[in-house]
Structure formats: C-alpha cells, structure tokens
C-alpha cells in the first residue's frame, strides 16, 4: 500500500480529500480530520478552498522565507499565521510568494477594473514637483539662475494646479 498522504496543513495523515471546481479550475486539498473540522470543510456552503490553498501553498523553503517587509516589518511567517498581509508594500516585498497564489485564487492575475485616476494623477504630480525641486536646488548650487527661475515657475504652476484641481465632480 502506498504511504498515506500527509495533511496539507499539519504533519498528520490526511483522511479528508476534497476537490472543488471554481471558475472551471480544479482545486484539490488533502487534510487530516482535525484540520478539516477546524477549517469548516464539513460545511460546504461557507467554505472556500481558495483561502485554504493560500496557506497551504506557503512552504518554508520559499525564497522569501527570511525576508522582512521594509515598510512594516512583516514576514512570510506572519502571513502564514494571519493569512493577511501587513501593508500595501508587502505585495512588492513578497511578490514571488503572491504571484503563484493568484492564479489559483482569481479569474485572472492582472487587474482589469477601475483605476483611481485622480489619486494617481495627484501622485505623479507630487513626484514631478519633487523632481523639479531637486533640479532647482542643483541649478541654484551651480549658479544657473536662468534654469532655476524656469524650474521655480514650473513648480509654482504645478502647485497651483494641485491646490485648484479641475473640479471633476
């Protein structure tokens, strides 16, 4: 007889084998009885394999095992514990961990919906102003006053545009 399958979530032998088809994708999971109970597998209406697979797909040898999110200090282990990330930046920090999950979890792996255009516009405006301010500093230091005046005018223009945005509403 083949050696029994191990539970996807703990070292016990798996006795519950589940297949769920979501969006025409087959999801399989093997669990021991205790894990099946605690994850609510027995309740078919409130149960989603996606959530479970998300945790099961984490393995300790992953390249992100020792990584810590620079912004919030989150680690892969924290994700395993909470099933949630620490901050928006975590998606960049742990991209190698997230990407393979998405295919299982969602209809596609790339966003196809709404884009917060006003927020993005504001962000690029901020970035442009910051860039111009650096240029201005440099120009002043190198005594290129004509350039500096040009940068300063452009900054003022952009700031005005920011304070009096096109009233889109």
């Amino acid at each position: 007889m083949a050696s029994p399958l191990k539970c996807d979530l703990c070292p016990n032998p798996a006795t519950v084998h589940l297949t769920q088809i979501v969006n025409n994708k087959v999801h399989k999971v093997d669990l021991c009885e205790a894990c099946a109970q605690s994850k609510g597998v027995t309740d078919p209406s409130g149960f989603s394999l996606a959530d479970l697979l998300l945790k099961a797909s984490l393995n300790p040898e992953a390249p992100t095992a020792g990584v810590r999110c620079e912004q919030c200090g989150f680690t892969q282990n924290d994700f395993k514990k909470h099933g949630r990330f620490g901050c928006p930046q975590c998606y960049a920090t742990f991209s190698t961990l997230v990407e393979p999950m998405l295919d299982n979890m969602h209809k596609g792996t790339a966003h196809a919906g709404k884009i917060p255009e006003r927020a993005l516009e504001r962000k690029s405006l901020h970035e442009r102003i910051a860039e111009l301010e650096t240029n201005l500093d440099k120009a002043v230091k190198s005594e290129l006053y004509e350039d500096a005046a040009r940068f300063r005018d452009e900054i003022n223009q952009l700031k005005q545009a920011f304070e009096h945005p096109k009233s889109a509403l």
Partner: protein
Amino acid sequence: MTIASLLATPSELTDTASSKSAVVLMTRIRLARNLAGKPFPGWAREAQRAEVLAACQEALLASAPMKRGAHAAVSALTELEKQMLVERHLISRELSGSPAGSGVVINKDQTVSVMINEEDHLRIQVLRSGFQLKKAWNFINALDTELEARLDYAFSPRLGYLTACPTNLGTGMRASAMMHLPALVIAGQMEKIVRAVNQLGMVVRGLFGEGSDASGSIFQISNQTTLGESEEAIIKRLGSVLESIIEHELNARAKLVESDATKLFDKIGRAYGILQNCHQLTSTEAMNLLSLLRLGIDLGVFPEDGRAIIDRLFIESQPGHIQRSAQHDLESNQRDILRAERLRLEFAQFAKPNFTINGQN
C-alpha cells in the same frame, strides 16, 4: 446625527415602501480600499489605526452622500447598538469585535455604510432593497471616486487595489444579493444550486455571511473572485447567475403548487396560525415562519402589501431589535416571549389568507 437616533429610524430594509421584489430581498456591493503607505488594520499599531480612522472619517464626512450621516468609533457603541447594526447589515461581526481605532460612518437613510479599520482601512458598502445591482454599482462607484480625490489609495497597476487579504485584490469588490429561496429549500435542491453556483465562481452564504445558517431560507450569493475582471463584468456575471437562480426558485414554486398544493398551503396556514397565537418564539423559528408567509404573499395567498411588513419583521425579530424594545436586559427565553408578543400584535392586523386564488389551476 448619532447612531442611536439612526437606529430609532427604520433602515432601507425595514422601509415599508420598498419591497416589491419576490425573490431578491436586497442587493449589496462593497469595496475594499486601503491608504497607501499605511499598515493594514490587523497589523497596525493603535496610534496608526487612530490616524487612519481620523483621516478616513474626515474624507467621508466631506463627501456628498455621507454629509449628514452618523459616525462613531466602535469603542463608543454599546453592545446592543453594535448588535442592531449587524442585524441591519450595516456593520460586520468582525468590526463589532475589533480593537480600538475602528469606526463606522452611516448615511441618513442607511443605504451607505463605511467601516473603517475592519480588515481593510475602508470597507465601503451600498445597500439597495430588491434586485438593483447596476444602481448600487453606479452609486458606490461615484462615492469611491469622490473619496479618491481626498485619500491616497494603495493601488498597483497590475494587482489593482491592494487589500489585506489577497483574495480581495484587484477590484476589491464583492457584489451580493440576499435571496429568499423557500421552494428550493423545501424541494431539497439547495445543495445542487450551491454546487452549481460555486462552479460559476460565485459563493453562497447564510443570512449573516460566512458561517451563518440559512434560517428563513435566506441566502447571500456573491462573487468569489475580484482580480482579472472589471467590476462591470463581475456584476454582469453575477446578475445572470441570480437571474437563473430566480428562475429555478420560481419553477420550484410552480412545481410545489402543482404536485402538492395542500401540503404547501398547510405549511403556510399553520405558519400564519402560529404567528397569530404563539407565546414563545425563537428568532430562528420566527424567521422560518415569516419566510413561509412571504412565500404565501408571492403565491397570492396574502395581498402584496404584506411583503414589506414581513421584510421589516425579518430584521425586527432579531435578538438585538427585540432587546431594544424592552426596558431592561432580557434572558433569551424572556426575549422569546417578547418576540411572540410583538409578532402576535403585528399579525392580529394582518390580512386573512385566501387559499383559492392561486395555484389551484
């Protein structure tokens, strides 16, 4: 406006003018949004949560739909207020149990509620009675766009709106309908429906979301996935799944009437009798009896205008709402007595059943 005075007025769902839909009781859309550069609520320190709460509250109260709404920190609400808000589907159980620095903003007619620092910084929700997915989407889309002018959302061009849990990435949208499916339950077809709906990428839950039971034969059907499709595409897909469930439910009703009208009318008639004469009633039993009366209305046994009353009682029979009408704290068996008393009163005025009009042909 305070939460307390808001709870004293009927909600969108208890609004007597609105219940025209036979199968879909309510449509709901929620958007998960987070602020760029801030840790998600579950990972943030208390001071960071407080900062996000203040920023979000300010932006919300400046937006047109929320201007004269009620807002409160969760820690400032009583247990009873929280429970009533959950029963009205205005906040989640998670929010009501969340640590310091969480809050809620609700508009005056209780069609929009925004939870702050639940699982995500913002959970924006729009409720509409009946089957109104498109209207709900247009409304929430406009509110979201207005908020975006004041708040820097965490967004990635490739992954969309960034959320604490990767299962909400992309649109961050969950659209759902609360459906009354008594005939499918009686006919024992719900399991089949749940399986079919799951295969289409939709989820079926009980009345109060994950893990709750389906008392009153009320189910929530919503999209499971959020990434890889536009909001409109998700809504369209959900809409067609809902249409097909409605069709199945109506077929199941026709079949029940055709095959054994006596048995069905017996159930409805008994439910009516119990509601008029009971002296002790649990909320689950109340839900199930009310559900049968609603089915009776749909079949023409009772007049149409009763539907709004039933939909209101679905909510007012919940434990929190019963507790509120009492002067002091009640044990659950005292609540059952009070619930029975309230329903007896309501149904003393209710129209008499007429079992001859419909279904006998």
